[in-house]
């Protein structure tokens, strides 16, 4: 598949009107997490960058923002969805061949062009690994190249071993980079790390002076992970520390007002923001 001409995706539709895509693949990642592979009914690819999201419609149920979990230019568009409400439940249960509405892509991306000669440190909690999957794959492909990172470190936390998503990817990545996984609560047969993802930051092998960190997960996890990264010596600058935030989003185009977060309209200024942008927003309750 070649990289799409962005003009091909230009829609004659208004900003709130989805295009129809069909489910061409589905994989159960965890008991309540499914990855859907989608293809445009009109044969129109959807160019995007890792970190961006789409608005997905389960017809008759509603529309929700879901980050893109695939890698640009490599196979079908993928979304990894956790079942947390009516719409995500319908999406998770969408059968092969069923039509879904797709609008997007929206929002900022991880900015992977800045990673030359860096130590890329990716920290994810739970479903927060989904918007990072495409970024990790792209970083690993570029690792060691002049414009790519020097090394790639992937640190993943999940509540239980059962809840760990992208297990096959994690195995693949561990052969090409440094991968560490931890769970909050172990189950029988788990021989890996137990504890919060913060501990993985303390133990990971990277040079803080070269580190560029990407963080996504529950807000409390991000706060502690960032704290640990800063304590390791990662500079809390906009270039070195980026996070992906979540708010209610209903339009993706900055027009519905739901994703207000202080000065930001997060569907446009985010979801990926720099740490200096996010630091106060992460500590102020109910903002």
């Amino acid at each position, binding site marked *: 598949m070649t990289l799409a001409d962005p003009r091909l995706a230009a829609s004659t539709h208004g900003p709130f009107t989805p295009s129809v895509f069909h489910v061409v693949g589905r994989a159960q990642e965890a008991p309540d997490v499914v990855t859907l592979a989608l293809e445009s009914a009109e044969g129109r690819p959807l160019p995007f960058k890792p970190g961006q999201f789409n608005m997905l419609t389960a017809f008759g149920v509603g529309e929700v923002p879901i980050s893109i979990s695939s890698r640009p230019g490599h196979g079908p568009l993928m979304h990894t969805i956790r079942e947390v409400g009516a719409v995500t439940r319908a999406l998770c249960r969408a059968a092969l061949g069923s039509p879904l509405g797709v609008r997007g892509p929206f929002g900022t991306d991880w900015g992977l062009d800045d990673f030359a000669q860096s130590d890329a440190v990716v920290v994810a909690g739970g479903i927060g690994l989904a918007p990072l999957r495409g970024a990790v794959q792209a970083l690993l492909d570029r690792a060691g190249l002049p414009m790519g990172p020097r090394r790639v470190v992937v640190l993943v936390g999940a509540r239980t071993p059962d809840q760990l998503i992208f297990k096959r990817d994690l195995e693949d990545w561990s052969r090409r980079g440094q991968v560490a996984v931890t769970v909050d609560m172990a189950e029988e047969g788990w021989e890996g790390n137990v504890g919060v993802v913060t501990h993985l930051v303390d133990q990971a092998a990277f040079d803080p002076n070269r580190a560029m960190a990407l963080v996504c997960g529950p807000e409390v996890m991000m706060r502690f992970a960032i704290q640990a990264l800063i304590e390791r010596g990662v500079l809390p600058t906009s270039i070195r520390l980026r996070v992906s935030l979540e708010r209610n989003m209903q339009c993706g185009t900055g027009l*519905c007002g739901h994703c207000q977060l202080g000065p930001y309209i997060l569907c446009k200024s985010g979801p990926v923001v720099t740490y200096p942008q996010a630091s106060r927003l992460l500590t102020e309750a109910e903002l």
Partner: protein
Amino acid sequence: MMSAGVVIGPDELEQLVKALLARGYRALGPVVRDGAIILGEVEGTAELPKGWQDNQAPGSYSLNQTGSHNLFDWAVGPQSVKAEVFPPRSTIWTAKPPGYVVEEVPDEAAPVAVIGARPCDLAGLDVLGRALVNGSAADPTFQRRSGGAFLVVAECTHPANTCFCVSMGTGPGASHGFDVRLTELPGAGTEDPRYLALAGTRQGRELLDGLPGRPAQPADEAERVNLLARAASRMGRSVDNAGLPELLARNLSNPRWDDVAERCLACGNCTAVCPTCFCANFEDTTDLQGTVRRQRTWASCSDLAHSYVHGGPVRSSIKSRYRQWATHKFSWWWDQFGTSGCIGCGRCITWCPAGIDITEEIAALRASDGAASTTKGAGER
């Protein structure tokens, strides 16, 4: 496109409305309904609120009839022009099973002419437009309706006790943004008023050129200036905007938010009457044939559901929701749209069932600036 003004009487004003109707506009004007002056469809000037005055205070609104022949002796009603350009409920698209081919539902409303919009309403349209037409997307309904609207503004000579447009720089006069500007020059007692009329656009000029009227004299303009100066001096309230965006941003933990939260009912009236609140929900309904209809409806940050993400609402306390509304209007709006989100119409004060007065809340925050440490350090737990 400004031309010299003309002075017209009530008969010519009637002709002006008829001329707009003849051009295919749906004419909306202030009408008295259910004890309030609202925007309603009019066929001439007979429906306009002749002799009516409004009395507004925090949580209070009433009308009284004075017997005068003036049409604009009132300030603002609960409705702004917002509902005409940003409908409270609209259908965006429909899709039929099983294939769900999505069909857009075009907005087909006839263009609207608003008779007697207020200068603050014009400012409201401008502020709303900055939110609904942004660099990467535009609301098609707003663009179509606001672009096609014909605006006859009536400058404000009777501000309410709740008004503070002078401090927001949005009134009581209007300098731009209208097709035709009217200033009602009141008649004494039960004499008919006259109207100093000025075109602001080519369409406005064409309309006025078709009306008999005498050219405005310096004395007419002087009377207008006096009326506006008197209106400005009778403004009931004000907001000190100096450094206000920064002041609010550093007072997110000010105890005043707890105080106002004790009074706020989170009913959403302030957002419903606000000319610039633009939040919207997108919701799907399905009929018995399975046809899906996606609708856009007004939303309110007062609602618990407004900030819902999986696991629950981000703003679960009323305090955080009132704070969101106030800080968005007077602080974050500047970051997002380069202007204040408030146009000083005072509707949120009048129509708050608890009588919460945003100007009083802002003054209290200013008086207690720094009462609590608010900017927590990076990574503080």
